[in-house]
């Protein structure tokens, strides 16, 4: 059996709000294997965003363990987590989150920039990805000059640039019309078909239907964990 990409063991995340302790995750066990495409669903406040932040190494667990690709990163320092983010995680956001003063290529190169990869090498990689995303004629455009769909393609190219172990998408179609949203989802399907491991947060049941697995959250706990049509391994 292969090493799981994500393994959470009794993961707890609590926020201290004044004298009040709010539990966002109440002892979660979750395992995502290589090549899986998992959708996380739940009402707002159910803990799904917290999960995504934790998986993306933007936050620390209050207790429990997080193993990313077999490596326990629960006790990692801020710098180590930054390194992991730049090398192993690909983020796709609802609002694209491109840096406005940088052009398409420069935006795609940002994660490589923080890895200290030589510029020429980064440039080659960025151009290849941008072309793959159908942005060949937009390489020097600023985000503002692109449509929403194009911006999200740039963001996907950026998330792929470091060959991530885990891709995290936070409602990637939330700001797009249905047609463009579908194009993006097809692109994600394609990546899944290539063997990428993807975790996506969404509200949309139709989108959830595309995934192989749906994890539902309520009040910081997993209430269902279905493999669409496939048996639980």
């Amino acid at each position, binding site marked *: 059996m292969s090493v799981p990409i994500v393994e959470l063991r009794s993961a707890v995340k609590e926020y201290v709000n004044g004298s009040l302790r709010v539990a966002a995750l109440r002892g979660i066990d979750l395992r995502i294997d290589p090549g899986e495409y998992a959708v996380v669903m739940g009402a707002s406040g159910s803990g799904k965003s917290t999960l995504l932040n934790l998986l993306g190494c933007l936050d620390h667990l209050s207790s429990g363990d997080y193993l990313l690709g077999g490596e326990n990163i629960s006790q990692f320092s801020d710098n180590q987590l*930054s390194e992991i983010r730049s090398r192993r995680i690909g983020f796709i956001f609802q609002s694209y989150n491109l840096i*406005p003063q940088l052009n398409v290529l420069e935006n795609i190169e940002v994660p490589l920039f*923080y890895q200290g990869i030589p510029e020429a090498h980064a440039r080659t990689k960025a151009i290849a990805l941008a072309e793959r995303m159908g942005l060949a004629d937009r390489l020097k455009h600023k985000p503002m000059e692109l449509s929403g769909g194009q911006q999200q393609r740039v963001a996907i190219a950026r998330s792929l640039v470091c060959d991530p172990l885990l891709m995290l998408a936070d409602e990637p179609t939330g700001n797009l019309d249905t047609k463009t949203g579908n194009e993006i989802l097809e692109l994600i399907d394609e990546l899944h078909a290539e063997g990428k491991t993807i975790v996506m947060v969404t509200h949309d049941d139709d989108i959830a239907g595309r995934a192989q697995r749906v994890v539902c959250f309520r009040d910081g706990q997993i209430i269902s964990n279905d493999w669409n049509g496939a048996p639980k391994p």
Partner: protein
Amino acid sequence: MKSMRPERLVRLAIKNLGQYKLRAGLTMLGIIFGVCSVVAMLSVGEGANREIQEKIQRMGSQNILIKSVKVPKEGDAPDSKRSMIAAYGLTYEDAQQFSQYVPNLEASTPMKVLRYDVQYKARKLQTDVIATTPWFLRVQHYRMVRGRFLTSSDMEYGTPVCVIGSRLARILFAGVDPVGKTLNIDRDAYTVVGVIGDIAQGELPTQGELWLAGENQNVYIPLRTYLNKRGDLFVQLSEGGGVFEKIELHELILSIDKQENVTRAVDAARRILRKNHKVEDYSIVVPLELIRQARETRRLFNIVLGSIAAISLIVGGIGIMNIMLATVSERTREIGIRRALGARRSDIVFQFLMETLLLSTSGGVIGLIFGALIPMAITAATGVKTVLTFPAFAIAFSVSVTVSVIFGIYPARRAALMDPIEALRHE
């Protein structure tokens, strides 16, 4: 762990600042004015300082200058032509006592300074004739341009020779070599034996006031020669009468062996003069004291200047901090994105510090350019001496950069310490 290379950081900073051209420009202005005013002030100050120092130094820091001063006698009406002869000032007796009682005295140079018409062929002008001794040249640090100065044999035999200032040589002799020519000083014939250097020399200072720079147009003759011809009575006819003055010595320069002995020598000279003169018909100028005063003045000046400079640079620094804080809060989301994509806290710190550094160094360089141009313009427009010194540039530039980096650290740290999740949520 790898970190970003500086040239990439610089390019990133340029790109980021490019977003806010007007704002960056205005921020730089603060630094530009700061650096520029510091450099300009230091240049003007240094120019004034050098000028004063030079003038004082020329008087000789080991010298004590004593000068006769005419004191109006009480009860002596100014229009009373009856008091025939005005006798005052330094006497041979004074000079003799100085030589005897002033400690560490190396040389005593007596001078008679009189105003006469001097004439070469048809050219004639009125100038100061200084009757003195051969060692005058050494004591006053003058240089010979041509020929020789007065010699001890001139002194001994009272030969009718003279040495003239270079300016006078130019005016009277215009192109002709003056050495060997005959110069008439108030109808007495003197042979020119040398030309003295082009050094600023006007009236000697009185009571610490400084004389104006100018070229030497005096005539120097042996004291003995003058005494043989004219004696101590100076007669000058003017309309409605004449001036009869009896002054034995107009000026006396006491040269002391070492600077540290000057103060003691001054005290001794003062005691002698006080004893010999009922009224204070003399003045004492001690260049060393003037130098000390000038240094003290300069120190004060530097403190004032330093405070102004510090204030202007701090103001510039605060301007930078202000702008960077605004920039950081506007770019909160960018910071969140960069953190999510793998930027370490230090990467964020360096990114913003580099922007600050770029603002301050480019502002500093522009400030230095203006700071160099302004003193030049001042000199060109007003003739006031200014001196551009390397330390002025270095201080202004490095202080401005240091100040801005210090003021840049806080915004940069604030950016770096943001919670990436919060920052990403920021609209």
